[in-house]
């Protein structure tokens, strides 16, 4: 059984197709990078899988079931800027929101839920900030709180939308280590990502996307020059790390190992 099985998925906004004819299988226990240029539909793909879009056709199966929030199979980290960080609440409270799916309607969070939330907050190195107003946290700290909230969901498959945007290097390291731990526990993690430099280090499975699936499979196999050219249309600019200069090589993707 695969973690995710998508067949013939299409999404349209107004009069253009944002995603078309997506067929995708992801095995259980992989750390997956979803890679593609701007406007390729990366976030849309996640939202479509999570059944958040009205104009969608096609089928999605999560661990062999159709998606139902009641199964608590899915954990989700939306983009950080989708949220109003002036909201009057503290870090622990946000993490506690990850338990709401388990707590259910009309029930209030119990001491056990609080303990769990605190444990998750500590696991991302934010224990001492539990009572801090979320507006007073740095970008990286906010992202860790979001990750802790997803951990509190105790899901089998995690979806993360651009978790590394606007965070410091230390946070990026913390997050990737936690993701690798999740993987070691047999969970599946899908990450929308756009830094090509780190793909090889972070992910053992890669999905290359540009409106449709260009290629998907083990990173070693599919993260190749040819596939990237196809996804990015050969217009890729690469930064040569050693000389720190921009090599605008049309199609010459030497920077990729």
């Amino acid at each position: 059984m695969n973690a995710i099985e998508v067949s013939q998925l299409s999404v349209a906004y107004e009069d253009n197709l944002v995603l078309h004819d997506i067929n995708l299988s992801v095995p259980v226990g992989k750390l997956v990078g979803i890679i593609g240029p701007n406007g390729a539909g990366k976030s849309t793909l996640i939202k479509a899988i999570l059944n958040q879009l009205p104009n969608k056709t096609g089928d999605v199966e999560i661990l062999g079931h159709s998606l139902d929030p009641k199964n608590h199979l899915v954990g989700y980290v939306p983009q950080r800027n989708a949220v109003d960080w002036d909201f009057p609440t503290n870090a622990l409270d946000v993490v506690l929101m990850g338990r709401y799916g388990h707590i259910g309607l009309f029930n209030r969070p119990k001491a056990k839920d609080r303990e769990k939330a605190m444990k998750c907050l500590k696991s991302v190195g934010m224990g001492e900030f539990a009572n801090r107003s979320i507006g007073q946290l740095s970008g990286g700290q906010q992202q860790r709180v979001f990750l802790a909230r997803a951990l509190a969901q105790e899901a089998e498959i995690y979806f993360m939308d651009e978790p590394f945007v606007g965070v410091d290097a230390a946070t990026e390291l913390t997050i990737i280590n936690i993701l690798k731990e999740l993987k070691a526990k047999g969970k599946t993690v899908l990450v929308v990502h756009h830094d090509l430099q780190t793909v090889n280090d972070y992910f053992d499975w890669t999905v290359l996307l540009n409106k449709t699936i260009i290629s998907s499979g083990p990173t070693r196999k599919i993260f190749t020059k040819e596939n990237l050219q196809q996804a990015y249309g050969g217009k890729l600019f690469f930064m040569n790390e050693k000389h720190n200069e921009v090599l605008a090589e049309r199609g010459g993707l030497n920077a990729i190992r």
Partner: protein
Amino acid sequence: MNEFWVLVTGSLVGITCGLTGVFLILRKMAMIADAISHTVLFGIVMAFIITQSLNGIWMMLGAGIAGVITAYLVQVLQSNGLQEDASIGVVFTTLFAVGVLLITLFAGNVHLDVEHVLMGEIAFVPWNTWTFMNLTMPKAVWMLLFVLLINILFLLGFYKEIKLSTFDPIFAMSIGLPLVFLHYAFMTLVSFTTVAAFDSVGAVLVVAMLIVPASTAYLLSKSIKRMIILSMLIGMLSAIGGYYFAKFLDASIAGMMATTAGGIFLLVFLFRPYEGLLMKKRKLVNMNNLTIKS
């Protein structure tokens, strides 16, 4: 005794609106409340035209329906690409104009003049009583207590759901919260609150009581619970203070309640801890001292 009932009514308006207002501010829907407070007129007139009575229950129903229609129409226009402020503006001015026109055409003679609906007359509240279970209280007080009860029950039942769907709707959707239901249930509550309050303070000034105390509390709060309590307290304080100021000046009670709420907001805005203007100045002075020292 009359003064007592006016104060009770005013305080109940402050408390009920203060409670509802908190989530209006957090959901960035203050102007939707403004829109609803205007279109409630349309609902009431329609209710009157259909039933030919000024019974509170029909008015409540008409207002509730008008409120939900307003929220729905704004949503429709917005999802089809018209920007939010214009969507709100188009919907409420149109329905308000239709409401005013219907009054002049069909309800000119009854006690339903536009001025009354817009400005209310809290001073007349004590004369219009209603007895239930051997308890005689002004009708407005009954209505407000009823709506306050519904508000509290709703929040007790859905507190964590409405909180999460306000803070992070995308995440809320992913764990299966019924966002659409929550949205329209809340809009219905806002309509109920508006109609219960406007008989005493008028539709336009309901907006003041919905938005201003909650905004003031927002500036002073780091948690929602504190914001709710502060908002209700400030609402009550505005109502009571407004009543006495109005008595002193012999001016409009409802107008004075709104003005008092505005005064409290101004004070908090200027002197609030950490961010107030005075604090900022003081901080600047401190910084200047520091630079001179070093």
